């Protein structure tokens, strides 16, 4: 195992970015899943397509759109600049990239969890006088915990691997925006870097396996506790 201080930073940065992206997306993911499952909306198909779009679009396309949107001349970029927030080429840009790319995975999982909830429970709570937010937080939220957890861990794992969108809006700056995949890309394109690339690949595999194992184990545990 060979590693430079910059590689260690890349590992920490990857974890930080993946965690922030997941935490940032959770409330939105929950809200969108709830809208899709429990509400009758006009143009639901449009929302559905929009939410799932990052799953099929090439990440490079997403990165380029985000750069145009959050860049100096984009409207979101101008707005943030007025508040003194600089996004492009910082680790926050990597969070945005991961959040957008991983969002569909989160919503899909939460949705599956919500769809398995017995509708009669929700209807019963409402007929007994619970307001919509009461039944949301006391019935729907606890019963979809499994889906939320599954979605969050999947999204976390996906964020760890984000490359295409990140390298466009965050750049590839060692020690600042360089995450594990970007560092591997750097090493793999130089003849002398293969040992370093392999060390980081190993770290990447270990983290991914750990996250997926956790995903499986906690998924089973939660299932057992809801079955009882």
């Amino acid at each position, binding site marked *: 195992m060979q590693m430079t201080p910059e590689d260690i930073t890349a590992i920490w940065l990857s974890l930080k970015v993946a965690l922030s992206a997941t935490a940032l997306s959770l409330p939105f993911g929950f809200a969108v899943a709830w809208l899709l499952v429990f509400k009758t909306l006009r143009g639901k198909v449009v929302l559905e397509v929009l939410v799932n779009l990052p799953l099929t679009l090439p990440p490079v396309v997403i990165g380029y759109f985000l*750069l*145009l949107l959050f*860049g*100096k*001349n984009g409207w979101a970029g101008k707005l943030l600049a007025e508040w003194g927030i600089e996004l*492009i*080429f910082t680790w926050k840009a990597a969070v945005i990239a991961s959040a957008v790319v991983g969002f569909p995975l989160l919503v899909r999982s939460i949705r599956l969890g919500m769809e398995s909830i017995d509708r009669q429970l929700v209807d019963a709570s409402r007929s007994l006088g619970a307001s919509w937010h009461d039944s949301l937080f006391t019935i729907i939220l606890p019963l979809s915990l499994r889906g939320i957890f599954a979605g969050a861990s999947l999204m976390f794992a996906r964020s760890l691997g984000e490359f295409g969108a990140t*390298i*466009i809006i965050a*750049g*590839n*700056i*060692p020690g600042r925006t*360089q995450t594990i995949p970007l560092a591997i*890309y*750097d*090493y*793999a*394109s*130089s*003849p002398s*870097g293969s040992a370093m690339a392999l060390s980081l690949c190993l770290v990447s595999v270990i983290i991914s396996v750990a996250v997926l194992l956790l995903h499986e184990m906690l998924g089973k545990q939660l299932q057992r506790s809801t079955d009882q």
Partner: protein
Amino acid sequence: MIQAMKKVTILCFALLTMTALTAKAGELNLSVAASLKEVINELSASYTATHPGTVFLKNFGPSGTLAGQIENGGPADLFIAANTEWMDYLNNKKLVEASTIKTFAYNSLVFTGTTNKKVQSIKYLPKLDKIGIGSPKSVPAGEYATAAITKAGIASQLTNKLVMAKDVRECLMYAELGEVDGSFVYKTDALLAKKSKLLFTVPQALYPRVVYPMALTNKAAQNSDAKAFIAYLQGKEAKSVLTKYGFILK
């Protein structure tokens, strides 16, 4: 059902082996550094006009990726790299025919951008906020740029201003969009820019020469089509196309 699936599988296998065997005479596989895309497209098109029997399969990409593909048995008859490092690497592994290694062209490093600030030479760079540069570990242009700012003695003043991109074209895109004040790119890339202006040419004394070496791979060394094409690439027509795109011949 199972019968039908078996048939489909056999058909798929047959198709796969057929496509694998269709690499026939007259077909040339080119593995070319991405910065030469426009030049090679133009040259291969005019070569086909006079040699209708030759069909080109072109693979453009970063030199390192191309060398890796050749090392792992990817089909390639002619390899043109954007630096000598990768050509030496393949030569050491005896994967290219040493006697066919020639210099195809040279390039030069420039600084291009949309900034309104006064940037007349490399000494003005510390006054800028953000500077685009190819990631020095993987992008040769970034390596040359790093050499230049180090030799000019301004490296420490630029540490927090450098934005590292995955290739030269990404650097150029950042400059075009105004996300950086300016970027280090090759002159040939700067000429393709629409908005950014060429602010200054980096003095050659500050960085090693940018060389594009070319060679035939081992298996193509006896291929007469490949030999004819590499000779054409050293001829008059190739030289005028290279000049047109801003490459340097000597």
